[in-house]
């Protein structure tokens, strides 16, 4: 077969044909994967919310949103059997990381004590900043943020006069992480009185245990 000539008509026809092919392929794969992608994203956040909260009876998985400049924080409130609030998980982001956005979820009890945290997204250097996933819950003095009251503790790296020892060799990542934690606490306190409108999901204790694994 001879090669098609480069006339305007041929060029237009061939490019239109290839575009149509690309469009149909992409549209069908998009429809195929759309729901799975959405599910995997929400389940990751749900899992993290469950892991960082103090013991609770039910939790609202429809968050209260709080916009603060470029950073967004989502507050997920948790309640006990008598519908009294026991704490909240706050999803908070920071754009000051070494490489892109850091997205974490921090769990507080009603007094503002940090229960636990989970990292949803981070692109920090492997081996350095990426250690944040476990660093700030390692049980070493000045390193662990769990059990600290975010309202009374100075949650800054010790270099900046705070009481937390940042990750060795990753001060920028540590600063960004603690910024997100402080922001989470701010969102937590400013939303204490906001009435929760979301649907409440009941979780039994067995499920809660497994989410900690």
């Amino acid at each position: 077969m001879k090669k098609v000539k480069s006339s305007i008509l041929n060029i237009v026809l061939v490019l239109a044909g290839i575009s149509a092919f690309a469009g149909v392929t992409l549209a069908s794969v998009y429809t195929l994967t759309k729901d799975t992608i959405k599910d995997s994203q929400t389940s990751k956040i749900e899992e993290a919310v469950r892991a960082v909260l103090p013991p609770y009876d039910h939790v609202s998985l429809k968050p209260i949103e709080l916009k603060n400049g470029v950073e967004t924080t989502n507050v997920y409130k948790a309640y006990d059997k008598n519908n009294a609030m026991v704490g909240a998980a706050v999803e908070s982001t920071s754009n000051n990381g070494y490489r892109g956005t850091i997205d974490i979820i921090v769990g507080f009890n009603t007094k503002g004590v940090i229960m636990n945290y989970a990292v949803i997204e981070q692109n920090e250097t492997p081996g350095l900043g990426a250690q944040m996933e476990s660093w700030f819950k390692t049980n070493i003095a000045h390193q662990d943020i769990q059990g600290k009251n975010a309202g009374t503790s100075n949650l800054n790296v010790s270099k900046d006069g705070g009481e937390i020892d940042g990750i060795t060799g990753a001060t920028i990542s540590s600063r960004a992480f603690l910024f997100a934690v402080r922001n989470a606490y701010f969102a937590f306190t400013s939303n204490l009185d906001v009435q929760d409108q979301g649907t409440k999901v009941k979780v039994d204790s067995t499920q809660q245990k497994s989410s900690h694994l």
Partner: protein
Amino acid sequence: MKQSGVKVFLNGIFKENPVLVLFLGMCPTLATTSTALTGMSMGLATLFVLFASNVVISILKNLIPERITMTAYVMIISTFVTVAEMLIHAYYPAMYVSLGIFLPLIVVNCLILGRVQVFASKNSVFYSALDGLGMGLGFTFALTVLGTLRELLGTGKAFGNTVFPEHYGALIFVLAPGAFITLGYLIAVVNSAKLRKTEDIEDNID
């Protein structure tokens, strides 16, 4: 030049290995091999894109006018890259996160555009498919070896399984300089093997 299917297939894996011999696609090679698993996943994603684009372009090679070959090739390649990206995002979200920007960047991997231009635009569908498979497997092989070495030397693990305690590892191998060092030694090994082979042949002639 007569071609045999086996030869075309093996060509990409050993004799013209894209990473270790042709030095194509160095960017993802250095960037995504901090662990064995990410290296292998990157290789497999590239394998899929290379195979699919090679096949489609060898089918369409006579229909694409000379002046828009590049435009047409890039459109076809980027379609398959986006397909790969969406599939990985849906069924392997953890890998989607760790490959990050390098997944969409497969579009500009010179390995793919290179094979499409050099091979698929001149050969039949059958040979192009074999070439795509062979080159893709060669790429995957090199990335997996590089990733395994870096992960092992850096963290004492292979595919996430601990081989020796982590504090014996040298962190530098997980970071960017370690990629250059490991790749350099790998290429040295391949080159010395090639040199020995040619010397053997010369000795036999003598």
